[in-house]
C-alpha cells in the first residue's frame, strides 16, 4: 500500500541561516539602491523622459507574470485533478505569493513618490488598468492565501478544489490585466495589441514553471529530500510545451505587425536593425532562451539529466527576461509615430531611436526583488509545512508499479 505524502518544515541551523543571510544581503543591496534612486531622483538611473520604464520594470513585470504562472502546478492538481502534482501544490502557492511580493516591491520602490503608496491604496481611477491591477495583485495574495489554508488545514481540505478553481480564474484575470497594461496603450507602435493579454498569460505559464522547477530542485537538494524522476520529468515536459507556446504567440504577434504597413518600422527595429534589441530578440530570447531549452528538455540525453534540466530552466528564465526587456524597453526605444511620412527632429528626442543603458542601482533593485521572493520562500518552507518530506517516485507516481517510464 502506498505511503501518505508527509509535509515538514526544513531544518534550521547554520546552513539555513547562512543561506538566508546571503539572500538578505541582496535584499539590503536592493533597498539601498532604491534609497539612492529616490534620494537623488531618477536622473541617476538610465531612465529618462524617453525611456520612462526601465530595468526595474523589466524585473517587476517578469516577477509578477511569473508569480501567477508559479501557481499553475497547484491549479493542475486542484482544478484539473492531476494527483501527481498534489504534493507540489503548497510550494506552488507559496512561490506564487513570494514572487508577487518581490515584483511589487520593485515596482513600488521605483515610483517617483514611494512615500505616497497610501495614495495608491486610497485614491482610485477605475478606468486605469493600473488601478484594477492594484486590486488584482492584493486580491491574488489573499485568494492564494485562502487556497493555501484550505490545502494545509485538514478540516478545510474539502474546499481545496473550490478555492483552487477561484485562484486559477483570478490568476488568469491577473495576467490578463498585466498584459493589458501594455495592450491598452494606443500611443506606441509596439503595444496597442489585444494579443498582449493572452501572450502574457502563456508567458506566465512558462516563466512561472521554470522558476518553480528550479526552486523545487534546489529545495529538495538542500534539504536532502528525495525528488523522483517521474514528477520532475512531467514538469519539464510541460515546461517545453509552454516555452514553445510562448514562441508561437511571439510569432503571431510579429506576423500580424509585419502584414500591417504602418507597423513595418517598429518590426524592422525589433527584428532587423534595432541593435541590442534585435540581438536580444534573436540570440537571447529565441535561440538560447527558447529553442535551446526546448531541445535540452526533449533530447533523450539532456532531458533525463537534472543538471541539463536546471540549465534549460535557467535559460528559459533568461529568455523571459530578454523578452520583457524587448517588450518594455524596446517598445519605448522606438519613437512615437506622430507625423507619418515625416522625418522628425527636436531637442526632446522626437523621431529618433531612444537610447537607454541600465544603471547599476536599477539592476541591483531588480535583483533585490528576486531576493525578496527567494527569501520569502526560504522562510516559508522553514516555518510552515510547504515542502513534502519525499517526492520519490513510489510516493508520487500513480504508474509507479506498472510503468516506471511514464512521464
Amino acid at each position, binding site marked *: 500500500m502506498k505511503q501518505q505524502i508527509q509535509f515538514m518544515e526544513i531544518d534550521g541551523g547554520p546552513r539555513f541561516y547562512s543561506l538566508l543571510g546571503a539572500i538578505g544581503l541582496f535584499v539590503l543591496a536592493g533597498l539601498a539602491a532604491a534609497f539612492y534612486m529616490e534620494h537623488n531622483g531618477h536622473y541617476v538611473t538610465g531612465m529618462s523622459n524617453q525611456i520612462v520604464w526601465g530595468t526595474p520594470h523589466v524585473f517587476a513585470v517578469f516577477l509578477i507574470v511569473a508569480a501567477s504562472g508559479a501557481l499553475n502546478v497547484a491549479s493542475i492538481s486542484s482544478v484539473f485533478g492531476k494527483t501527481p502534482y498534489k504534493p507540489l501544490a503548497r510550494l506552488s502557492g507559496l512561490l506564487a505569493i513570494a514572487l508577487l511580493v518581490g515584483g511589487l516591491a520593485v515596482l513600488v520602490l521605483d515610483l517617483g513618490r514611494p512615500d505616497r503608496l497610501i*495614495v495608491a491604496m486610497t485614491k482610485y481611477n477605475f478606468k486605469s488598468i493600473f488601478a484594477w491591477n492594484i486590486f488584482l495583485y492584493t486580491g491574488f495574495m489573499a485568494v492564494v492565501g485562502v487556497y493555501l489554508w484550505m490545502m494545509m488545514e485538514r478540516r478545510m481540505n474539502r474546499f481545496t478544489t473550490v478555492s483552487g478553481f477561484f485562484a486559477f480564474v483570478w490568476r488568469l484575470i491577473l495576467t490578463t490585466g498585466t498584459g493589458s497594461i501594455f495592450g491598452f496603450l494606443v500611443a506606441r507602435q509596439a503595444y496597442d495589441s489585444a494579443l498582449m493579454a493572452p501572450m502574457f498569460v502563456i508567458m506566465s505559464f512558462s516563466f512561472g514553471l521554470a522558476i518553480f522547477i528550479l526552486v523545487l530542485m534546489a529545495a529538495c537538494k538542500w534539504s536532502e529530500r528525495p525528488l523522483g524522476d517521474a514528477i520532475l520529468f512531467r514538469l519539464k515536459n510541460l515546461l517545453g510545451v509552454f516555452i514553445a507556446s510562448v514562441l508561437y504567440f511571439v510569432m503571431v504577434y510579429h506576423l500580424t505587425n509585419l502584414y500591417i504597413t504602418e507597423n513595418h518600422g517598429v518590426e524592422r527595429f525589433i527584428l532587423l536593425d534595432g541593435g541590442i534589441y534585435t540581438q536580444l530578440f534573436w540570440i537571447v530570447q529565441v535561440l538560447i532562451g527558447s529553442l535551446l531549452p526546448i531541445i535540452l528538455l526533449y533530447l533523450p540525453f539532456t532531458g533525463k539529466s537534472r543538471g541539463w534540466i536546471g540549465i534549460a530552466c535557467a535559460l528559459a528564465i533568461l529568455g523571459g527576461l530578454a523578452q520583457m526587456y524587448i517588450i518594455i524597453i524596446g517598445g519605448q526605444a522606438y519613437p*512615437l509615430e506622430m507625423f507619418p511620412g*515625416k522625418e522628425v527632429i527636436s531637442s526632446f528626442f522626437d523621431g529618433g531611436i531612444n537610447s537607454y543603458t541600465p544603471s547599476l542601482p536599477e539592476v541591483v533593485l531588480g535583483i533585490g526583488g528576486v531576493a525578496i521572493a527567494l527569501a520569502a520562500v526560504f522562510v516559508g518552507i522553514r516555518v510552515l509545512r510547504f515542502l513534502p518530506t519525499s517526492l520519490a517516485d513510489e510516493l508520487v507516481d500513480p504508474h509507479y508499479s506498472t510503468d516506471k517510464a511514464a512521464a
Partner: protein
Amino acid sequence: MTDNAHTDTTRRRFLGGAATAVAGLALAPGVLLHKVAQARPADEPVSSAVRWGMLIDTNKCAKGCSDCVNACAKEHGLTGHGRPQTDAQWIRSVDLRDKQTGYTQTLPLLCQHCEHPPCVDVCPTGASFKRADGIVLVDKHICIGCRYCMMACPYKARSFVHETIDDQLPHSPRGKGTVESCTFCVERVDTGRTPACVEACKAENHNAMIFGDMNDPASEISKQLKKYNSRQIRADLELNTGVRYRGI
C-alpha cells in the same frame, strides 16, 4: 528700457496686485481686452461651458524660432540641469521633413489637452485629470510618479521630474518624483490672461498662436477654426485635441 518695465509688472503681479498687473500688461491691448471680458470671478469654479483651445498656424512658425519655448521656460522656471535626456520640456519646437517630397516645416508641440486624454484614462490615482474647461493637468499632490501617463501619451507631452528642485515659482509648483506637462498656463487663464507662449508669440509679432474658448462661436479661435481647415495630430485616435494646427 522695456526690460525693466516688464519685470516690474511681473513682480507686482506676483505680489497679488491683479489690477496693477492688468494695467501693466496693457502693452498687449488686443489680447487683454478680449480676455478680460471672459475673466471668471475668483470664487467661481470652472465650467464645461468653456473649452480652452489653441490654434497654431505652422505657416507662421519660422525654423529656429523658439520664442514660445523660451517664454514657457521662463514662465514656469524650467531651468535645465544640463541633462537633455531628463530635463523637462513642456513645449518644444519640432522640425519636420517629408520623406517623399523633402518639404520642411517647424511647429511647437505641447500637451494637446485632449477631450479624451489617454493619460487621464491610465492614471491609477486620478492625479492626471481634465478640468471642466478642458485643461488637462497633473494633481501633483496625489501623483505617485508611476509614469504610466508618460507611456500612454501619444504626444510625448509629459516630463518626469528627475531631481530635487529648489526655488520654484509660487504660481508653478514642481517637485521631484512627479510628472508634469503644459498647463495651458492655468494660473494665467484663470485670471483672464493668455498662456505665456501665446503672449510671447504675439509680442514678437509672429501671431502664429491663438488661444481661446472653442465653445464660444464669437471667439477668435472658433472663427478661425470654422473658416480654415485645421488638423489634429494623430487625429486617428479620435482624442479631439484642444490644440489644432494649420499647415500640417
